[in-house]
């Protein structure tokens, strides 16, 4: 076997290397200098992100268990960028006294989950897929419980691990049925053998339920809000953006490749999930005051919108999902970045605490507004394009009523996004959050988000590129 072939796994290998290097660096720095690990790791990760963009070979490894294509490489690059932004945003938080002795843990755990997600994206059979899933999930529980002295954070960790274990069990149960019916765990073989019969249908429903936990679709979303609220903000943003984005990628890939022959079976299921996810998440988001819970429900609703791209099966569906996640990364990290910056400076975590923010911190307020408008899908920012193409995909398959429900939901979501805008710009407050200067790393992260929010929508080349590699991938 030619060792050069392993370069196909360059993203995973690089990340593993990074995790090891961080571990060694941790051991070899004295207690006084721990804080230096932060810029070191961020620099290292930035390097990895850049290397990831160097075009390279694509193909299959291990007899098809590992597949790489331009699309999977692109997805991994999106996740890398997202994690880079999360790291930059975490810098100020990690520098705090209580976290100084846990810096490397944060980075290593995060990178481990990212490795798992990369393997999931590249999986060519259900075994690699499942191993990737577990690698991606278990470290997150550690991250959620990172503020171990806070009972809320510990609770979040426990909740996450329990619900993950349950969902993994359900997922495995479903996979075993599919294995029983088709006699193979290889995606290619399963795809060739799936028929719309009862056993496959049952297995498929369990599979979707299991994945539903990961993407937090209604009615599998109950862990989301509590975990998002309890976990530290920089973990929440990771969960909400990277973890969810990766799960959406994988879900789409598997539905579009493995289960493409039973489209008629899964479309009604996705339809129902989409309607419930959008509507219920929106209704719950209406009454939140904690900004993290608020963003949790908003991100559940966004997952519902992603399902519209999924239901528009085919290359347009794939393109729109990948494009939307790309937009979502910058948009949601923009919002989370502001929340994290404010939390680090003042500890405020409620929407009513944001009253009068524009007077004291105009730039952050504008950035938050921009991100929220992008989440709501208001032109001319990227979120508008992302949503529009998702809806185009669904409408292209003839689901006009679903599109109507979705756009009405987008209107409802505008209400609660505007509530935050109202707090920042309109509400009067005698003691607003005082003016502060965020750290340089946070500024870089936020500038990246703003650039993404503005550029991705107008740069149609990105969309066309995703479309081309999606067509390559699906054929």
């Amino acid at each position, binding site marked *: 076997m030619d060792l050069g072939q392993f370069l196909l796994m360059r993203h995973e290998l690089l990340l593993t290397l990074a995790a090891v290097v961080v571990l060694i660096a941790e051991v070899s720095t004295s207690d006084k200098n721990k804080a230096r690990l932060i810029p070191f790791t961020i620099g290292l990760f930035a390097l990895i992100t850049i290397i990831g963009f160097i075009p390279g070979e694509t193909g299959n490894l291990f007899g098809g268990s590992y597949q790489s294509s331009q699309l999977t490489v692109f997805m991994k690059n999106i996740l890398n960028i997202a994690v880079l932004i999360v790291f930059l945003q975490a810098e100020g938080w990690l520098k705090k006294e209580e976290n100084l002795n846990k810096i490397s843990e944060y980075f290593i755990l995060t990178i481990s989950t990212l490795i798992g997600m990369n393997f999931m994206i590249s999986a060519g059979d259900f075994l690699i897929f499942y191993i990737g899933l577990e690698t991606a999930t278990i470290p997150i529980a550690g991250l959620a419980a990172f503020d171990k002295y806070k009972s809320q954070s510990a609770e979040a960790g426990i909740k996450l691990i329990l619900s993950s274990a349950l969902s993994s069990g359900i997922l495995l149960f479903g996979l075993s049925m599919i294995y029983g019916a088709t006699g193979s765990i290889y995606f290619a073989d399963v795809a060739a053998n799936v028929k719309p019969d009862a056993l496959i249908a049952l297995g498929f429903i369990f599979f979707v339920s299991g994945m539903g936990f990961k993407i937090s679709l209604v009615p599998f979303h109950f862990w989301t809000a509590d975990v998002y609220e309890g976990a530290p903000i920089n973990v929440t943003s990771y969960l909400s953006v990277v973890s969810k984005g990766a799960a959406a990628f994988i879900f789409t890939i598997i539905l579009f490749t493995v289960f493409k022959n039973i489209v008629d079976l899964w479309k009604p299921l996705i339809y129902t999930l989409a309607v419930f996810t959008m509507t219920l998440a929106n209704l719950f988001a209406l009454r939140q005051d904690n900004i993290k819970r608020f963003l949790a429900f908003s991100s559940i609703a966004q997952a519902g919108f992603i399902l519209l791209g999924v239901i528009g099966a085919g290359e347009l569906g794939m393109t729109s999902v990948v494009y939307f996640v790309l937009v979502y990364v910058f948009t949601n990290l923009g919002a989370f970045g502001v929340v994290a910056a404010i939390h680090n400076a003042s500890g405020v975590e409620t929407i009513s605490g944001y009253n009068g923010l524009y007077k004291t911190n105009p730039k952050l307020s504008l950035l938050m507004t921009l991100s929220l*408008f992008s989440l709501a899908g208001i*032109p001319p920012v990227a979120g508008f394009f992302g949503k529009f193409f998702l809806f185009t995909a669904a*409408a292209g398959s003839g689901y006009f009523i679903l*599109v*109507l429900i979705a756009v009405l939901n987008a209107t409802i979501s505008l209400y609660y996004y*505007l509530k935050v805008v*109202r707090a920042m710009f*309109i509400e009067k407050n005698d003691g607003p959050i005082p003016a502060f200067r965020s750290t340089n790393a946070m500024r870089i992260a936020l500038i990246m988000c703003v650039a993404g929010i503005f550029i991705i929508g107008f740069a*149609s080349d990105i969309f066309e590129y995703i*479309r081309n590699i999606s067509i390559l991938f699906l054929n």
Partner: protein
Amino acid sequence: MNILTLHVVIPILTIIAILFTKDLKGARVVSAVGMGVQLIATAVLLFMYLGARKTGNMHEMLFTADYTWFKSLNIHYFIGVDGIAVAMLCLTSIVVFAGIFASWEMEYLSREFFISLILLATGVYGFFISLDLFTMFLFYELAVIPMYLLIGIWGTGPKESSAMKLTLMLMGGSALLMVGIFGIYFNSAPDGGQLTFNIIEISKIKIPVEAQRFFFPFTFIGFGILGALFPFHTWSPDGHASAPTAVSMLHAGVLMKLGGYGCFRVAMFLMPEAANEMAWFFIILTTISVVYGALGAIWQTDLKFINAYSSVSHVGLVLVALLMLNQTAIDGAIIQMISHGLMTALFFALIGMIYGRTHTRNINEMGGLMKVMPFLAVVYMIAGLASLGLPGLSGFVAEMTIFVGAFEHHDMFHRVVTVIIASSIVITAVYILRVVGKILLGPIIDKHHEHLPDAKWFEKLSTVTLVLAIAAIGIAPLWLSDTIIASLKPVMAKLAMVIPF
């Protein structure tokens, strides 16, 4: 650069320039200069357009430019104008220019105010020049969203709830509209081939009638909500009453016209069969708008509410005229859009100025203002007379054309409708004359009003611009009317295939 693209670029440059200003003085000067340049650009466009038509350039759209944007979905930045769009652009430039001067003393967060206001205008300009449904929709939403901040931050009264109500209802409208646009897009190539958002290309094919039946209501109501279509008009009185002066001007003057223009350019032009079939239903709704709006205005005592309800009535007249589906009525509808845009902008400007002096908008608390502020009072009277359709001013031309057009239908239904909507003129006269009599004439009620100053130079500039435009249309309506009728040909040709006249 294409003169139409310039109409979007100038406001954006103005916004960037405002970012570099420090205070109100800088911001307002920059805005005034920017929008002054924009007004000149529109005037140049008008003369270029008339010149091109005179030399016999009979293309459907002039000054077109076409850039591919999202290639695989066939989304273009495709722009071009006909006489109707040029007229709407002129209206927009005049109202925006007047609006800047009407908010000359906006002390609170002035930079942000002018930026939001001009952003709103950018959306409106972009909407009128777009011939691609995607860009049109993009600009449409861009025009709606700054309203929230403009009303929420700088408004009066229950501004937060009014702003939220307005934004959500209009965005709900755009939700319907989005479904309609998707419906048009995915039916734009019934014989196979490339789907398109291009309005001109779609107008050349026939969208399957079943699809039209399904998607026409979405599109029409979607735009209609912005045109205060009954029963979706409730955002309008609250929104207008709470908005600051310039925003009311721009919103009632221009933004509501986006609704009428969209109904005409997208819903009726692209789906004429369904428009013909369903016209009766929407005629009933819009007739209710006309009469209900006028009756509502009678009962109000707040000047802004009176004018807001009157807007519902007048814009309803636009929609009802469009639905008459004949050349005269549609011509009247478009003149009415321009005329009402100017008139209502003038009204709201005056109300803002009066309120700035008397600190009340309640007509029972004012009286004899003619004695203390003769300039403003006279202009108010002119606006009122234009509104009730006095010959020589723009309102008469518009309404007369509409009623003549509506009466061209011979059947009972249209005749009855015509009679009902014509009755709104009488009701209009009632509430206009009542207000004029109460607040301008008679004795001065409030002693504090005795020494109020008359209009300042920027207020005079703002109002005189609008009065001149109103009088111009009233005195020489034919050049406007001819331009519109010439541009109506493609639409009428399309409708003629459907309607058995």
